[in-house]
C-alpha cells in the first residue's frame, strides 16, 4: 500500500468500518509514514471542525411563516368549495337573465294571442255605446265559443268580432268593419236554414233562455244572431262557374267573401253579409240552383236584422249535383 491508498482509507479507518487486516496494514503504515500520519491528524481535525460547526437557530418568524403558508394551503379546500359554487355568481345573473327572457317571451307570445280577445272586446264596447249594457256581459262567452269555433269553420259572430277574424285571414276585411256601424237596421230576414255545427247548436239552445233572462232581449238577440252562422247549400251543375256567380251575387248584396274552401265536388264560401241582405241573397241564389237553408231561428234573425249594425257570417256550400236532379 502506498500513501494514496492509505489516505483513501483513513476515513473508513477512523469510522472503524474497515476490515481488521486493512486496519493492521494502515496502522503499520502510519508508524513509518509521517505524511500519512499528518493526513490522519488533519482528517480528525477536519471532522472535529465539522462537528463543532455551530448550530444555527431558526428565526422566530420561521414557524409563523410556515404556518401562514400552510393555513393558506388549507384555504384552497374552501377554495375548492368556492370554485364549485363560484359559478353561481355567474350563473345566478345568467339564470335571472334567462328567466326574464323567458318571461318576456311568454308575455310576448301571450300578447300575440291576446289580441283576439282584446279586439273582440273593443268592438263590443262599441256596441255597448248603442246597446244596453248587458250586451257587454254577454260578449265574453261569445268570444270563448267563437275561439273554439274558429278552426272547424267560423260560426256567426258579432260583426266586430268577425272583423278581427277577418283581419287575420283577409286583410281587406278591416275596412268593412268600419262600415258596419253605418249599416242601417234591416228588416228580418227569413227562410234561412241554419246548418249549425255542434257547438253552434249548443249556443242556439242557450239562446232562448238567455233571451228570456236578459233584461234587454233585443240586444241579446242581436248578440246571438251575430254569433250564429247562416248556412246555405246551393246545388249547382258547375261548381266553379256557379261559385263565381254566387260570389258576384254576394257582392251585389253587400256581402264580402272571407274565404273560399275548395273541397271535392263542392266549394264552401265563407262570407259576411248584412242580415237584412240575407233574404235577397237567398232569392238570387235560388236562381242559380236549389238552395237549402239551415238558418238560425227566424225570429232571432229578424231581431238581429233589425238591430244589427254589423254583418253576420254566412256559409254557402256550393255542391255539384247529378244531372238527373235537375
Amino acid at each position, binding site marked *: 500500500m502506498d500513501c494514496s491508498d492509505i489516505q483513501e482509507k483513513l476515513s473508513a479507518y477512523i469510522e472503524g468500518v474497515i476490515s481488521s487486516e486493512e486496519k493492521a496494514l494502515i496502522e503499520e503504515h502510519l508508524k513509518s509514514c509521517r505524511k500519512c500520519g499528518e493526513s490522519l491528524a488533519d*482528517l480528525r*481535525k477536519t471532522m472535529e471542525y465539522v*462537528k463543532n460547526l455551530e448550530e444555527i437557530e431558526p428565526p422566530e418568524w420561521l414557524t409563523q411563516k410556515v*404556518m401562514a403558508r400552510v393555513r393558506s394551503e388549507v384555504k384552497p379546500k374552501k377554495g375548492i368549495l368556492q370554485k364549485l359554487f363560484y359559478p353561481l355568481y355567474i350563473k345566478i345573473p345568467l339564470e335571472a337573465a334567462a328567466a326574464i327572457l323567458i318571461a318576456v317571451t311568454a308575455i310576448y307570445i301571450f300578447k300575440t294571442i291576446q289580441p283576439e280577445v282584446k279586439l273582440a272586446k273593443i268592438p263590443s264596447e262599441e256596441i255597448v255605446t248603442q246597446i244596453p249594457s248587458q250586451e257587454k256581459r254577454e260578449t265574453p262567452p261569445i268570444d270563448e265559443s267563437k275561439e273554439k269555433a274558429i278552426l272547424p269553420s267560423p260560426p256567426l259572430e258579432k260583426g266586430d268580432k268577425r272583423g278581427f277574424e277577418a283581419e287575420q285571414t283577409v286583410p281587406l276585411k278591416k275596412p268593412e268593419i268600419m262600415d258596419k256601424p253605418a249599416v242601417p237596421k234591416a228588416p228580418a230576414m227569413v227562410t234561412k236554414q241554419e246548418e249549425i255545427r255542434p257547438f253552434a247548436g249548443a249556443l242556439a239552445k242557450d239562446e232562448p233562455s238567455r233571451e228570456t233572462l236578459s233584461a234587454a232581449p233585443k240586444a241579446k238577440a242581436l248578440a246571438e244572431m251575430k254569433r250564429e252562422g247562416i248556412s246555405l247549400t246551393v246545388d249547382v251543375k258547375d261548381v266553379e262557374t256557379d261559385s263565381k256567380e254566387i260570389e258576384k251575387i254576394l257582392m251585389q248584396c253587400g256581402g264580402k267573401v272571407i274565404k273560399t274552401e275548395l273541397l271535392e265536388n263542392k266549394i264552401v264560401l265563407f262570407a259576411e253579409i248584412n242580415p237584412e241582405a240575407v233574404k235577397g241573397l237567398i232569392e238570387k241564389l235560388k236562381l242559380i240552383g236549389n238552395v237549402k237553408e239551415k238558418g238560425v231561428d227566424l225570429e232571432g234573425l229578424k231581431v238581429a236584422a233589425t238591430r244589427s249594425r254589423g254583418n253576420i257570417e254566412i256559409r254557402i256550400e256550393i255542391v255539384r249535383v247529378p244531372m238527373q236532379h235537375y
Partner: protein
Amino acid sequence: MKKNEQIKDNDYETVSLCKKGDVNAFEALVKKHQKRMLNIAYRMIGNYEDACETVQDAFVSAYRNIKYFEEKARFSTWLYTIVVNLSRNRLKQLKIRSNREVFSLNDPVLTDDSRIRIDPASGEPSILQKLEKKEIRQKVQECINSLDGEFKEALILRDIQGFSYSEISDMLKIAEGTVKSRLFRARDALRKCLKGVSGDL
C-alpha cells in the same frame, strides 16, 4: 433493512393528526423539526436567508404531501429528505444565478466576500493561523460549500447531523456503500480544502 425497529416514530401520532387535517398538529411538527431542517439547509446552501426560505418550502411541501407519507420510515427522515432535495434545487438555482454574476466579481458592491476568498485563499498559508474560532467555522463552511453536492450531502447528514448510514441511504436513495464512499471522499476533500486554505490545520 433494520428499519422495522426504527419505525417507532414518536411523530407518528402527530402525523396522523395532520393527515386528518389538524393544522395545529402540523405546527407542532414544524416547531420540533425546524431547527434541524434549517441546519441541514443552511449547511447545504451556505446562506441563511435562502436556507430559511428553503425550509419554509420544505414544510409547505411536506404539508401538501403528508397524506402520501407512508409510515415506512420515520417522519423526520421523510421530512429531511424533502429539505435535502429542495436545498439541492435551491443550490442549483443559486449557482446558475452566481454564474451569471461571475462577471460582476470585479464589482465590489455585488461581490460576496466569502466567495471571493475561496479561490485566492489557497495561496495564503498564514491566514488560518490567525483565524479565530468563528473564522475557522466560516472557513469550514466555505470549504463545505465548495464540495460537490453529493459529497456535501453525505458529509452534512453524517458528520454534522449524525444520521446513520441507513438513514442517509434512505434519504438520498443511494446504497449505504455509496454513502460511505461519498462521505469519505467528502471528508478528504474537505481536509484538503482546509489544508489548502490554511496550509495547516
